[in-house]
């Protein structure tokens, strides 16, 4: 047995190790403006695809309309891909974009 006054080895406290979420880069689900899809239709699609209430859906629809695009979600690649598929099935111009540099 070691002597009682023997110092214990130093332990290094590391910050929380990367979770899968932080390891995997985020992807933004972006909806782009176009001249063909009506505002009411876009609002309805956002409610249907994301389960948003009307207020939130309209907020994002207005962003699309006024700013040219709206970031609808930040997700893992698989989930972002799923949302883009759903939005494009409704014929909206939607893409996924890597988040960050």
């Amino acid at each position, binding site marked *: 047995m070691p002597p009682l006054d023997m110092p214990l080895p130093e332990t290094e406290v590391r910050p929380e190790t990367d979770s899968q979420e932080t390891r995997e880069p985020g992807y933004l689900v972006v909806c782009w403006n176009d001249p*063909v899809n009506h505002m009411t239709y876009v609002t309805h699609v956002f409610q249907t695809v994301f389960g948003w209430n009307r207020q939130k859906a309209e907020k994002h629809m207005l962003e699309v309309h006024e700013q040219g695009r709206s970031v609808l979600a930040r997700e893992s*690649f698989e989930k972002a891909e799923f949302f*883009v598929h759903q939005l494009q099935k409704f014929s909206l*111009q939607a893409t996924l*974009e890597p988040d960050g540099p």
Partner: protein
Amino acid sequence: MKIVSRDPEVLVVRLDSREYDALRAALALRAHLPRRPRPITGDTAVSKHLQSASQDLAQALGEHRHELGRGIEALLSDPKRCAPQPRGARLLTLTAEDANLLLQTLNDLRVRAWERLGCPDFEAGERPEVTEDNFLCLWALQVTDLFQAFLLSGLDGEEAGQ
């Protein structure tokens, strides 16, 4: 077009014979108008991963469009969901899923017609001149406008402009 009844589960609408014929004629146009593929990303440095995802998307959308066509045909051929009425009218009994199927199909047609017209920027006031080559696409845009507005107002619980 008239909303006969609605509740959270089902929307019942009545189309007279002209409206039903117009809907059928418009939907039939889909087969003659191709859709342009849309990218899954605007990121110019497209990795192999994203290239593969773009191909997956194109395939999924192609299959989906075929499903829309089959789904709509099944809907409009089903006497329970599209019930013949006197004088050629139809009573459509639509669940939320049926209504979204119709909305997606109408919008798919709408975008196809718009692309065939050369993607005019309506918001900027562009109005294509009517020609023998494009009048059907212009007509399709008008018809899909009307049906979409009506369906959305029905789903929202508002009365469409009648």
